[in-house]
């Protein structure tokens, strides 16, 4: 890192208030700096893992074998976790593995095995909506790529930090989350709570309905909520 680049970094106006503490090491791209996607080792690995992730994601949606789709989803989600790691976001990476690979995929597999999980191809594992789905996914991908590129075009992660917690360490993530993003965090938790309560209400209503229409139940107990 040349002194000129560092000086420029401090002169650069802040675009994202939440990344205040990131500024120390997220350097703007400047002259004399390695260019966009210059072939350093990390970037090559980043691209390769990205290709694997993309491939796995495509196979996930096009395969005719239901359980294979879930297993390819593991590869895709794991690839995303590796990308997070390469971007030094260690905490997010492990949470990604814990929640998505460890729980969501297990839930999907559980659902498949509980209902229908044939070995081999399922002839009906296809949808008439495939073109609509393609359009929607392309639109979503386009939006996300635009937003991310627009937000982080000029930022650069300095991998050789002198001391202190890294860019994506749990400390830095926690600081950013609870200093600048408390409101969205709380809104999300309210949303999750609402979903939780909703799930409980739904399951209880079914229980009450079963007790009411079961026939053998006591006459006075029927009713439900």
């Amino acid at each position, binding site marked *: 890192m040349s002194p000129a680049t560092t000086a420029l970094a401090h002169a650069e106006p802040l675009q994202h208030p939440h990344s205040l503490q990131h500024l120390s090491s997220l350097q703007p791209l400047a002259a004399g700096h390695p260019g966009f996607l210059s072939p350093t080792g990390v970037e090559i690995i980043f691209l390769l893992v990205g290709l694997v992730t993309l491939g796995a994601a495509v196979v996930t949606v096009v395969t005719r074998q239901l359980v294979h789709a879930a297993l390819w989803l593991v590869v895709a989600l794991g690839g995303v976790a590796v990308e997070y790691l390469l971007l030094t976001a260690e905490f997010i990476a492990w949470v990604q593995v814990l929640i998505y690979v*460890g729980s969501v995929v297990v839930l999907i597999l559980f659902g*498949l095995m509980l209902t229908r999980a044939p070995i081999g191809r399922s002839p009906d594992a296809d949808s008439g909506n495939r073109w609509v789905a393609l359009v929607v996914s392309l639109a979503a991908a386009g939006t996300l790529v635009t937003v991310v590129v627009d937000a982080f075009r000029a930022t650069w992660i300095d991998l050789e930090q002198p001391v202190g917690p890294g860019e994506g360490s749990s400390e830095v993530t926690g600081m950013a989350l609870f200093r600048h993003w408390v409101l969205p965090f709380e809104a999300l938790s309210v949303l999750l709570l609402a979903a939780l309560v909703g799930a409980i209400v739904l399951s209880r209503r079914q229980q009450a309905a079963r007790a009411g229409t079961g026939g053998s139940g006591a006459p006075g107990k029927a009713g439900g909520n």
Partner: protein
Amino acid sequence: MDALDVTVRIVAVFLAFLLLPLLVGQTEHKVMAHMQGRVGPMYAGGFHGWAQLVADGVKFAQKEDVVPDGADRRVFQLAPALALIPYLLVLVAIPVAPGRGVVQALDAGIFFVLAVMGVGILGSLMGGWASANKFSLLGGLRTAAQLMAYELPMLLAAASVAMAAGTLSLPGILGVWEWWWLPWQLVGGVVFFTAGLAELQRPPFDAPIADSEIIFGAYTEYTGLRFALFLLAEYAGIVVLSALTAVLFLGGWHGPSADGLGWLWMLLKTGVLAFGVIWLRVSYPRLREDQIQRLAWTALVPLALFQIALTGVVKVVM
């Protein structure tokens, strides 16, 4: 760290990974035999049948590797590796001694170990599905249900320790550990260890592999080395769970003259916990599937939440 240092550490982890599970397996043979008043295998190797596990290994290696006709070949063959390798990765992050006594200190160590341990369950699920066997499918289903029920209390209990220490790093937690954390985090420790046992599908939570009901569940169709890999994963899981519980709740390498003998304390605590795992197998009957779910949701989750509240209150008051 230079290359030699890294190599030595990796070799050490690999040796620990190969030796400790076998040691636990041998201990299980002997402890179960003594607790049940029987002799057990006594001849292989001469002294108290110490070479029985080696002989078992040779036997497994000689057996034919059968893949059922209707099975999904690739998934079926991949499953044992996926069950075993996560435990090898977890060992990398567990501190065994003060200072540099950890192969790789991770910033979010707790999340790393719990996340990677959760991935190992996928091995059982894949095996259960790919075997094309009703018993295996039932075993896989029970495995998944059990994981989803017990992942939550385990995470909450671990979160309590992280709150107490103010860090997610395992060496960091040990760095600030004090003896009075033992009673303080006791409830969390019990919850963590119990939930860990359930994730490993060890008795009394072995409904997913119940040999007398569903004939070893997900492993019904496995033979030879692949079956041995599943067994090895179980014992490696015991080692990892005991070591993690020791680090999070029993103070890891803390003890008299920890600077020199830290590794010994760590090994001792891990060993005592592993002994407890074996003891539970011998002394408790298998829980029914609904009892397993009930225990998780009505006992362990509230207890873990209570522990988090307690940790928070103590942390704020002090």
